[in-house]
Protein backbone atom coordinates (compact mmCIF):
# COMPACT_ATOMS: atom_id res chain seq x y z
CA UNK A 1 0.00 0.00 0.00
CA UNK A 2 2.78 2.39 1.03
CA UNK A 3 4.79 1.33 -2.01
CA UNK A 4 1.89 2.18 -4.27
CA UNK A 5 1.55 5.53 -2.59
CA UNK A 6 5.25 6.21 -3.06
CA UNK A 7 5.19 5.12 -6.68
CA UNK A 8 2.60 7.81 -7.29
CA UNK A 9 5.35 10.34 -6.60
CA UNK A 10 7.17 9.12 -9.70
CA UNK A 11 4.16 10.09 -11.78
CA UNK A 12 3.63 13.45 -10.14
CA UNK A 13 2.21 16.06 -12.49
CA UNK A 14 5.25 17.99 -13.67
CA UNK A 15 3.37 21.27 -13.32
CA UNK A 16 3.83 20.94 -9.55
CA UNK A 17 7.58 20.83 -10.10
CA UNK A 18 7.34 23.83 -12.41
CA UNK A 19 5.45 25.72 -9.69
CA UNK A 20 7.99 24.75 -7.05
CA UNK A 21 10.85 25.97 -9.23
CA UNK A 22 9.02 29.21 -10.07
CA UNK A 23 8.57 29.95 -6.36
CA UNK A 24 12.17 28.96 -5.61
CA UNK A 25 13.46 31.37 -8.25
CA UNK A 26 10.98 34.14 -7.61
CA UNK A 27 11.82 34.65 -3.94
CA UNK A 28 15.59 35.34 -4.21
CA UNK A 29 15.13 37.40 -7.38
CA UNK A 30 12.68 39.65 -5.54
CA UNK A 31 14.63 39.66 -2.30
CA UNK A 32 18.31 38.63 -2.73
CA UNK A 33 19.81 36.69 0.15
CA UNK A 34 23.30 38.07 -0.49
CA UNK A 35 25.33 34.94 0.24
CA UNK A 36 29.08 35.54 -0.02
CA UNK A 37 30.97 33.95 -2.91
CA UNK A 38 33.52 31.98 -0.92
CA UNK A 39 35.88 30.71 -3.60
CA UNK A 40 37.29 31.90 -6.88
CA UNK A 41 38.16 29.23 -9.40
CA UNK A 42 41.74 29.21 -10.77
CA UNK A 43 40.45 29.46 -14.36
CA UNK A 44 38.57 32.70 -13.61
CA UNK A 45 41.58 34.08 -11.80
CA UNK A 46 43.72 33.35 -14.86
CA UNK A 47 41.46 35.51 -17.03
CA UNK A 48 41.70 38.30 -14.49
CA UNK A 49 45.48 38.05 -14.38
CA UNK A 50 45.73 37.99 -18.19
CA UNK A 51 44.02 41.39 -18.33
CA UNK A 52 45.59 42.73 -15.16
CA UNK A 53 49.16 42.27 -16.40
CA UNK A 54 48.62 44.14 -19.69
CA UNK A 55 50.18 47.60 -19.85
CA UNK A 56 47.85 50.57 -20.40
CA UNK A 57 47.15 51.20 -24.09
CA UNK A 58 47.32 47.51 -25.08
CA UNK A 59 44.71 46.49 -27.62
CA UNK A 60 42.27 43.78 -26.51
CA UNK A 61 39.79 42.26 -28.93
CA UNK A 62 36.48 41.22 -27.42
CA UNK A 63 34.37 38.76 -29.36
CA UNK A 64 30.94 39.00 -27.75
CA UNK A 65 28.83 36.26 -29.28
CA UNK A 66 25.75 35.54 -27.24
CA UNK A 67 22.10 36.36 -27.65
CA UNK A 68 19.38 37.03 -25.08
CA UNK A 69 18.92 33.30 -24.42
CA UNK A 70 22.26 33.10 -22.62
CA UNK A 71 22.21 36.69 -21.43
CA UNK A 72 21.79 35.98 -17.67
CA UNK A 73 25.10 34.11 -17.58
CA UNK A 74 27.16 35.89 -20.20
CA UNK A 75 26.05 39.51 -20.06
CA UNK A 76 27.33 40.04 -16.49
CA UNK A 77 30.70 38.51 -17.34
CA UNK A 78 31.07 40.60 -20.53
CA UNK A 79 30.19 43.71 -18.53
CA UNK A 80 32.70 42.83 -15.78
CA UNK A 81 35.44 42.08 -18.32
CA UNK A 82 34.91 45.40 -20.09
CA UNK A 83 34.88 47.25 -16.78
CA UNK A 84 38.20 45.64 -15.98
CA UNK A 85 39.65 46.52 -19.39
CA UNK A 86 38.52 50.15 -19.16
CA UNK A 87 39.76 50.49 -15.61
CA UNK A 88 43.20 49.37 -16.85
CA UNK A 89 43.04 51.92 -19.70
CA UNK A 90 43.25 49.24 -22.35
CA UNK A 91 42.08 49.90 -25.89
CA UNK A 92 39.05 47.78 -26.73
CA UNK A 93 37.80 46.44 -30.05
CA UNK A 94 34.53 44.52 -30.18
CA UNK A 95 33.47 42.04 -32.83
CA UNK A 96 30.46 39.76 -33.01
CA UNK A 97 29.42 36.83 -35.16
CA UNK A 98 25.95 36.38 -33.67
CA UNK A 99 23.35 38.81 -34.99
CA UNK A 100 21.41 38.67 -31.72
CA UNK A 101 24.43 40.04 -29.82
CA UNK A 102 24.36 43.48 -31.38
CA UNK A 103 21.64 44.89 -29.12
CA UNK A 104 23.29 43.46 -26.02
CA UNK A 105 26.62 45.00 -26.99
CA UNK A 106 24.93 48.37 -27.47
CA UNK A 107 23.36 47.96 -24.04
CA UNK A 108 26.74 47.45 -22.38
CA UNK A 109 28.41 50.28 -24.26
CA UNK A 110 25.61 52.71 -23.51
CA UNK A 111 26.58 52.40 -19.87
CA UNK A 112 30.06 51.07 -19.10
CA UNK A 113 32.33 53.49 -21.08
CA UNK A 114 30.66 56.48 -19.38
CA UNK A 115 31.66 55.10 -15.98
CA UNK A 116 35.32 55.39 -17.06
CA UNK A 117 34.99 58.44 -19.29
CA UNK A 118 35.87 56.42 -22.40
CA UNK A 119 35.00 57.59 -25.89
CA UNK A 120 33.89 55.73 -29.00
CA UNK A 121 36.68 55.73 -31.58
CA UNK A 122 39.28 56.89 -29.10
CA UNK A 123 39.22 54.21 -26.41
CA UNK A 124 36.99 51.60 -28.00
CA UNK A 125 35.31 50.67 -31.24
CA UNK A 126 32.44 48.34 -32.01
CA UNK A 127 32.77 46.61 -35.33
CA UNK A 128 29.70 45.47 -37.28
CA UNK A 129 28.24 41.97 -37.19
CA UNK A 130 29.79 39.55 -39.67
CA UNK A 131 28.14 36.26 -40.58
CA UNK A 132 31.02 34.11 -41.72
CA UNK A 133 33.27 33.67 -38.73
CA UNK A 134 36.04 31.50 -40.19
CA UNK A 135 36.51 33.72 -43.21
CA UNK A 136 36.67 36.80 -40.98
CA UNK A 137 39.12 35.19 -38.56
CA UNK A 138 41.38 34.21 -41.43
CA UNK A 139 41.20 37.65 -43.03
CA UNK A 140 42.02 39.39 -39.75
CA UNK A 141 45.28 37.46 -39.57
CA UNK A 142 46.77 39.55 -42.36
CA UNK A 143 44.80 42.79 -42.50
CA UNK A 144 41.68 43.34 -40.44
CA UNK A 145 40.79 46.45 -42.47
CA UNK A 146 40.21 44.14 -45.43
CA UNK A 147 37.09 42.89 -43.68
CA UNK A 148 36.32 45.67 -41.20
CA UNK A 149 36.75 49.01 -42.90
CA UNK A 150 34.04 50.75 -40.86
CA UNK A 151 32.60 50.56 -37.37
CA UNK A 152 28.96 49.64 -36.74
CA UNK A 153 27.90 53.25 -37.44
CA UNK A 154 29.66 53.37 -40.78
CA UNK A 155 32.65 55.46 -39.63
CA UNK A 156 36.03 54.47 -41.14
CA UNK A 157 38.11 52.81 -38.44
CA UNK A 158 41.58 52.98 -39.94
CA UNK A 159 42.22 56.54 -38.68
CA UNK A 160 40.60 56.07 -35.29
CA UNK A 161 43.00 56.56 -32.33
CA UNK A 162 41.80 53.27 -30.84
CA UNK A 163 43.06 51.39 -33.89
CA UNK A 164 46.48 53.09 -34.02
CA UNK A 165 49.14 50.50 -34.81
CA UNK A 166 46.62 47.66 -35.01
CA UNK A 167 46.58 45.82 -38.31
CA UNK A 168 46.27 42.14 -37.46
CA UNK A 169 46.52 39.65 -34.60
CA UNK A 170 50.20 40.39 -34.04
CA UNK A 171 49.20 43.84 -32.78
CA UNK A 172 46.67 42.51 -30.29
CA UNK A 173 47.62 41.67 -26.71
CA UNK A 174 44.67 39.45 -25.95
CA UNK A 175 41.50 38.06 -27.49
CA UNK A 176 38.58 37.51 -25.13
CA UNK A 177 35.68 35.48 -26.43
CA UNK A 178 32.44 35.53 -24.44
CA UNK A 179 30.11 33.12 -26.12
CA UNK A 180 27.17 30.79 -25.76
CA UNK A 181 28.25 28.96 -28.92
CA UNK A 182 31.31 26.98 -30.05
CA UNK A 183 33.08 30.15 -31.23
CA UNK A 184 35.63 29.95 -28.45
CA UNK A 185 36.92 26.71 -30.01
CA UNK A 186 37.40 28.61 -33.27
CA UNK A 187 39.31 31.41 -31.55
CA UNK A 188 41.60 28.83 -29.94
CA UNK A 189 42.15 26.70 -33.04
CA UNK A 190 42.20 29.27 -35.83
CA UNK A 191 43.67 32.28 -34.03
CA UNK A 192 45.32 31.43 -30.70
CA UNK A 193 47.19 28.33 -31.84
CA UNK A 194 48.02 29.52 -35.32
CA UNK A 195 49.05 33.12 -34.70
CA UNK A 196 50.20 32.88 -31.09
CA UNK A 197 47.65 35.36 -29.72
CA UNK A 198 46.64 34.75 -26.10
CA UNK A 199 42.97 33.74 -25.98
CA UNK A 200 40.76 33.82 -22.89
CA UNK A 201 37.08 32.99 -22.70
CA UNK A 202 33.78 33.21 -20.96
CA UNK A 203 31.16 30.53 -21.54
CA UNK A 204 27.93 29.16 -20.10
CA UNK A 205 28.19 26.76 -17.16
CA UNK A 206 27.02 23.88 -19.33
CA UNK A 207 29.87 24.39 -21.82
CA UNK A 208 32.55 24.97 -19.21
CA UNK A 209 33.70 21.36 -18.66
CA UNK A 210 34.41 20.97 -22.38
CA UNK A 211 37.24 23.51 -22.27
CA UNK A 212 39.33 21.64 -19.70
CA UNK A 213 41.80 20.28 -22.29
CA UNK A 214 42.50 23.79 -23.66
CA UNK A 215 43.06 25.15 -20.16
CA UNK A 216 45.47 22.37 -19.25
CA UNK A 217 47.61 22.97 -22.33
CA UNK A 218 47.44 26.75 -21.85
CA UNK A 219 45.87 27.15 -25.28
CA UNK A 220 43.23 29.00 -23.32
CA UNK A 221 44.70 31.53 -20.90
CA UNK A 222 41.67 31.40 -18.63
CA UNK A 223 37.96 30.68 -18.58
CA UNK A 224 34.98 32.20 -16.83
CA UNK A 225 32.18 29.69 -16.47
CA UNK A 226 28.51 30.53 -16.02
CA UNK A 227 26.89 32.83 -13.54
CA UNK A 228 29.24 31.71 -10.77
CA UNK A 229 32.19 32.68 -12.93
CA UNK A 230 30.59 36.06 -13.56
CA UNK A 231 30.07 36.54 -9.83
CA UNK A 232 33.70 35.53 -9.20
CA UNK A 233 34.95 38.03 -11.74
CA UNK A 234 32.78 40.76 -10.27
CA UNK A 235 34.28 40.06 -6.87
CA UNK A 236 37.81 40.14 -8.37
CA UNK A 237 37.25 43.59 -9.84
CA UNK A 238 35.32 44.55 -6.69
CA UNK A 239 32.23 45.65 -8.60
CA UNK A 240 29.23 43.46 -7.75
CA UNK A 241 26.70 43.28 -10.56
CA UNK A 242 24.06 41.03 -12.05
CA UNK A 243 26.27 37.96 -11.67
CA UNK A 244 26.49 38.43 -7.92
CA UNK A 245 22.77 39.05 -7.49
CA UNK A 246 21.83 36.22 -9.88
CA UNK A 247 23.82 33.66 -7.92
CA UNK A 248 21.21 33.78 -5.13
CA UNK A 249 18.49 32.40 -7.37
CA UNK A 250 20.96 29.85 -8.70
CA UNK A 251 21.77 28.76 -5.13
CA UNK A 252 18.24 27.71 -4.38
CA UNK A 253 17.58 26.28 -7.85
CA UNK A 254 20.64 24.01 -7.54
CA UNK A 255 19.55 22.84 -4.12
CA UNK A 256 16.04 22.15 -5.43
CA UNK A 257 17.46 19.99 -8.23
CA UNK A 258 19.54 18.05 -5.69
CA UNK A 259 16.58 17.63 -3.37
CA UNK A 260 14.41 16.33 -6.21
CA UNK A 261 17.05 13.88 -7.43
CA UNK A 262 17.64 12.61 -3.89
CA UNK A 263 13.91 12.28 -3.21
CA UNK A 264 13.26 10.27 -6.37
CA UNK A 265 16.20 7.95 -5.61
CA UNK A 266 15.23 7.42 -1.98
CA UNK A 267 11.74 6.49 -3.15
CA UNK A 268 13.28 4.14 -5.72
CA UNK A 269 15.39 2.45 -3.04
CA UNK A 270 12.42 2.10 -0.72
CA UNK A 271 10.19 0.64 -3.42
CA UNK A 272 12.93 -1.78 -4.49
CA UNK A 273 14.16 -3.13 -1.13
CA UNK A 274 11.40 -2.67 1.45
Amino acid at each position, binding site marked *: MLKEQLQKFFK*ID*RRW*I*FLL*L*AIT*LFVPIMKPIG*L*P*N*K*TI*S*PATKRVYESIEKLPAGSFVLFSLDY*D*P*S*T*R*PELHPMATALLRHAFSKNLRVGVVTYIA*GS*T*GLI*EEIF*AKVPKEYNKKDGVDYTILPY*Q*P*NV*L*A*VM*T*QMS*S*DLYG*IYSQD*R*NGNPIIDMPVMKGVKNYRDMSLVVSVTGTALLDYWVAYVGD*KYGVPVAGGVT*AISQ*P*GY*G*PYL*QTNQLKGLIGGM*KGAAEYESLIKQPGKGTSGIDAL*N*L*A*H*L*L*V*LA*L*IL*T*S*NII*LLFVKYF
Partner: protein
Amino acid sequence: MKLIKKHIPLAIVMVTGVLTLVSYYVPNKLSVNYIETLSQWENIVVAFAFLLGLISLFFSHYNKISRKADGWGYSVFVFVGFLAMVLPAYLSHGKQMTDAGLTPLGWSFKFIYNALSGTMFAVLAFYIVSTAYRSFRIKSMQAFVLFVAAFILILGKVPLGQIIWDSVLGWTGQGVSDVIEWIMQVPAVAGKRGIMIGISIGAIVTSLKIIFGIEKQYMGKD
Protein backbone atom coordinates in the same frame (compact mmCIF):
# COMPACT_ATOMS: atom_id res chain seq x y z
CA MET B 1 27.52 15.59 -69.57
CA LYS B 2 29.40 13.50 -67.04
CA LEU B 3 32.32 15.87 -67.40
CA ILE B 4 30.24 18.89 -66.39
CA LYS B 5 28.18 17.17 -63.72
CA LYS B 6 30.87 15.04 -62.13
CA HIS B 7 34.47 15.47 -63.17
CA ILE B 8 34.70 19.26 -63.19
CA PRO B 9 33.04 19.70 -59.74
CA LEU B 10 35.27 16.98 -58.30
CA ALA B 11 38.34 18.67 -59.78
CA ILE B 12 37.29 22.05 -58.30
CA VAL B 13 36.80 20.46 -54.88
CA MET B 14 40.14 18.68 -55.05
CA VAL B 15 42.18 21.69 -56.21
CA THR B 16 40.49 24.09 -53.76
CA GLY B 17 40.72 21.60 -50.92
CA VAL B 18 44.40 20.83 -51.43
CA LEU B 19 45.32 24.51 -51.88
CA THR B 20 43.43 25.55 -48.75
CA LEU B 21 44.97 22.74 -46.74
CA VAL B 22 48.48 23.58 -47.92
CA SER B 23 47.92 27.30 -47.31
CA TYR B 24 47.32 26.63 -43.62
CA TYR B 25 50.85 25.27 -43.24
CA VAL B 26 52.71 27.49 -45.72
CA PRO B 27 53.31 31.02 -44.43
CA ASN B 28 53.82 32.59 -47.83
CA LYS B 29 52.52 35.84 -49.38
CA LEU B 30 50.91 33.83 -52.17
CA SER B 31 49.08 31.52 -49.79
CA VAL B 32 47.93 34.47 -47.63
CA ASN B 33 46.55 36.22 -50.71
CA TYR B 34 44.83 33.02 -51.79
CA ILE B 35 43.19 32.58 -48.39
CA GLU B 36 42.11 36.24 -48.33
CA THR B 37 40.49 35.96 -51.76
CA LEU B 38 38.81 32.73 -50.78
CA SER B 39 37.53 34.32 -47.54
CA GLN B 40 36.00 37.19 -49.50
CA TRP B 41 34.37 34.77 -51.94
CA GLU B 42 33.10 32.78 -49.00
CA ASN B 43 31.51 35.90 -47.50
CA ILE B 44 29.73 36.62 -50.77
CA VAL B 45 28.50 33.02 -51.00
CA VAL B 46 27.29 33.16 -47.38
CA ALA B 47 25.34 36.37 -48.14
CA PHE B 48 23.58 34.60 -51.01
CA ALA B 49 23.00 31.54 -48.82
CA PHE B 50 21.28 33.83 -46.30
CA LEU B 51 19.01 35.16 -49.01
CA LEU B 52 18.31 31.68 -50.33
CA GLY B 53 17.50 30.46 -46.81
CA LEU B 54 15.14 33.38 -46.27
CA ILE B 55 13.29 32.80 -49.53
CA SER B 56 13.05 29.08 -48.81
CA LEU B 57 11.71 29.80 -45.29
CA PHE B 58 9.10 32.19 -46.65
CA PHE B 59 7.95 29.78 -49.34
CA SER B 60 7.70 26.91 -46.90
CA HIS B 61 5.60 28.89 -44.42
CA TYR B 62 3.53 30.58 -47.13
CA ASN B 63 2.61 27.12 -48.42
CA LYS B 64 1.64 26.03 -44.91
CA ILE B 65 -0.63 29.03 -44.51
CA SER B 66 -2.21 28.73 -47.95
CA ARG B 67 -2.89 24.99 -47.43
CA LYS B 68 -4.10 25.63 -43.87
CA ALA B 69 -1.81 22.79 -42.76
CA ASP B 70 -1.64 21.75 -39.10
CA GLY B 71 -0.22 24.58 -37.00
CA TRP B 72 -0.45 27.09 -39.87
CA GLY B 73 -1.14 29.82 -37.32
CA TYR B 74 2.45 29.54 -36.10
CA SER B 75 3.67 30.18 -39.63
CA VAL B 76 1.95 33.57 -39.58
CA PHE B 77 4.26 34.50 -36.74
CA VAL B 78 7.29 33.83 -38.94
CA PHE B 79 6.19 36.77 -41.08
CA VAL B 80 5.05 38.85 -38.11
CA GLY B 81 8.41 38.29 -36.37
CA PHE B 82 10.35 39.04 -39.53
CA LEU B 83 8.50 42.28 -40.15
CA ALA B 84 8.70 43.28 -36.47
CA MET B 85 12.50 43.25 -36.73
CA VAL B 86 13.20 44.13 -40.36
CA LEU B 87 10.89 47.15 -40.69
CA PRO B 88 12.34 48.92 -37.61
CA ALA B 89 15.85 47.99 -38.83
CA TYR B 90 15.10 49.63 -42.17
CA LEU B 91 13.60 52.72 -40.51
CA SER B 92 16.55 53.01 -38.10
CA HIS B 93 19.18 52.42 -40.82
CA GLY B 94 20.45 49.46 -38.80
CA LYS B 95 21.27 51.56 -35.73
CA GLN B 96 19.95 50.45 -32.36
CA MET B 97 20.95 53.44 -30.32
CA THR B 98 21.44 57.14 -30.99
CA ASP B 99 22.19 60.03 -28.66
CA ALA B 100 18.44 60.45 -28.27
CA GLY B 101 18.09 56.87 -26.98
CA LEU B 102 16.68 53.68 -28.46
CA THR B 103 15.78 53.65 -32.13
CA PRO B 104 12.78 51.60 -33.34
CA LEU B 105 15.23 48.73 -34.01
CA GLY B 106 16.66 49.05 -30.50
CA TRP B 107 13.13 49.00 -29.11
CA SER B 108 12.21 45.87 -31.11
CA PHE B 109 15.40 44.18 -30.00
CA LYS B 110 14.92 45.01 -26.35
CA PHE B 111 11.21 44.45 -25.99
CA ILE B 112 10.48 41.77 -28.59
CA TYR B 113 13.55 39.72 -29.48
CA ASN B 114 15.21 39.96 -26.08
CA ALA B 115 12.04 39.03 -24.21
CA LEU B 116 11.03 36.18 -26.53
CA SER B 117 14.49 34.64 -26.76
CA GLY B 118 15.02 34.88 -23.00
CA THR B 119 11.64 33.31 -22.32
CA MET B 120 12.22 30.42 -24.70
CA PHE B 121 15.51 29.56 -23.03
CA ALA B 122 14.17 30.06 -19.51
CA VAL B 123 11.44 27.49 -20.15
CA LEU B 124 14.23 24.93 -20.53
CA ALA B 125 15.10 25.32 -16.85
CA PHE B 126 11.65 24.03 -15.89
CA TYR B 127 11.97 20.99 -18.14
CA ILE B 128 15.49 20.25 -16.89
CA VAL B 129 14.39 20.29 -13.24
CA SER B 130 11.35 18.17 -14.01
CA THR B 131 13.47 15.71 -16.00
CA ALA B 132 16.08 15.55 -13.23
CA TYR B 133 13.37 14.38 -10.85
CA ARG B 134 11.72 11.92 -13.21
CA SER B 135 14.73 10.41 -14.98
CA PHE B 136 17.84 10.63 -12.80
CA ARG B 137 17.44 7.19 -11.23
CA ILE B 138 20.41 5.21 -9.98
CA LYS B 139 19.87 1.81 -11.52
CA SER B 140 23.46 0.78 -12.24
CA MET B 141 27.04 1.39 -11.09
CA GLN B 142 27.64 3.80 -13.99
CA ALA B 143 24.53 5.77 -13.03
CA PHE B 144 25.83 5.91 -9.45
CA VAL B 145 29.19 7.34 -10.53
CA LEU B 146 27.38 9.90 -12.70
CA PHE B 147 25.13 10.76 -9.78
CA VAL B 148 28.02 11.32 -7.37
CA ALA B 149 29.88 13.55 -9.86
CA ALA B 150 26.74 15.50 -10.71
CA PHE B 151 25.81 15.87 -7.06
CA ILE B 152 29.19 17.32 -6.13
CA LEU B 153 29.23 19.67 -9.12
CA ILE B 154 25.69 20.94 -8.58
CA LEU B 155 26.36 21.44 -4.89
CA GLY B 156 29.77 23.03 -5.23
CA LYS B 157 28.87 25.45 -7.98
CA VAL B 158 26.93 27.72 -5.66
CA PRO B 159 27.97 29.41 -2.38
CA LEU B 160 25.10 27.85 -0.41
CA GLY B 161 26.26 24.39 -1.51
CA GLN B 162 29.79 25.23 -0.42
CA ILE B 163 28.51 26.28 2.99
CA ILE B 164 26.54 23.01 3.30
CA TRP B 165 29.61 20.96 2.25
CA ASP B 166 31.83 22.75 4.75
CA SER B 167 29.41 22.19 7.61
CA VAL B 168 28.78 18.51 6.80
CA LEU B 169 32.09 17.36 5.31
CA GLY B 170 34.43 20.10 6.53
CA TRP B 171 36.11 17.60 8.85
CA THR B 172 37.60 15.78 5.83
CA GLY B 173 39.83 18.78 5.14
CA GLN B 174 38.78 18.78 1.48
CA GLY B 175 36.81 21.75 0.22
CA VAL B 176 34.15 21.09 -2.41
CA SER B 177 36.05 23.42 -4.78
CA ASP B 178 39.10 21.12 -4.56
CA VAL B 179 36.98 18.08 -5.37
CA ILE B 180 35.32 19.89 -8.29
CA GLU B 181 38.71 21.01 -9.56
CA TRP B 182 39.88 17.38 -9.54
CA ILE B 183 36.75 16.16 -11.33
CA MET B 184 37.10 18.86 -13.97
CA GLN B 185 40.86 18.43 -14.40
CA VAL B 186 41.14 14.65 -14.43
CA PRO B 187 38.12 12.51 -15.43
CA ALA B 188 36.25 15.28 -17.28
CA VAL B 189 39.31 16.35 -19.27
CA ALA B 190 40.23 12.73 -20.04
CA GLY B 191 36.75 12.07 -21.41
CA LYS B 192 36.57 15.34 -23.32
CA ARG B 193 40.04 14.86 -24.78
CA GLY B 194 39.11 11.39 -26.00
CA ILE B 195 35.97 12.74 -27.63
CA MET B 196 37.88 15.64 -29.22
CA ILE B 197 40.54 13.34 -30.65
CA GLY B 198 37.86 11.00 -32.01
CA ILE B 199 35.91 13.84 -33.61
CA SER B 200 39.07 15.37 -35.08
CA ILE B 201 40.22 12.10 -36.62
CA GLY B 202 36.73 11.61 -38.06
CA ALA B 203 36.73 15.15 -39.47
CA ILE B 204 40.18 14.69 -41.03
CA VAL B 205 39.19 11.39 -42.62
CA THR B 206 35.91 12.80 -43.97
CA SER B 207 37.66 15.91 -45.32
CA LEU B 208 40.28 13.81 -47.09
CA LYS B 209 37.57 11.59 -48.52
CA ILE B 210 35.79 14.66 -49.92
CA ILE B 211 38.99 16.25 -51.24
CA PHE B 212 40.05 13.09 -53.04
CA GLY B 213 36.58 12.38 -54.42
CA ILE B 214 35.89 9.21 -52.41
CA GLU B 215 32.93 10.81 -50.65
CA LYS B 216 30.58 12.33 -53.23
CA GLN B 217 27.22 12.50 -51.48
CA TYR B 218 27.33 16.31 -51.39
CA MET B 219 26.94 16.27 -55.18
CA GLY B 220 23.53 14.63 -55.01
CA LYS B 221 22.37 11.40 -56.62
CA ASP B 222 22.73 12.28 -60.32
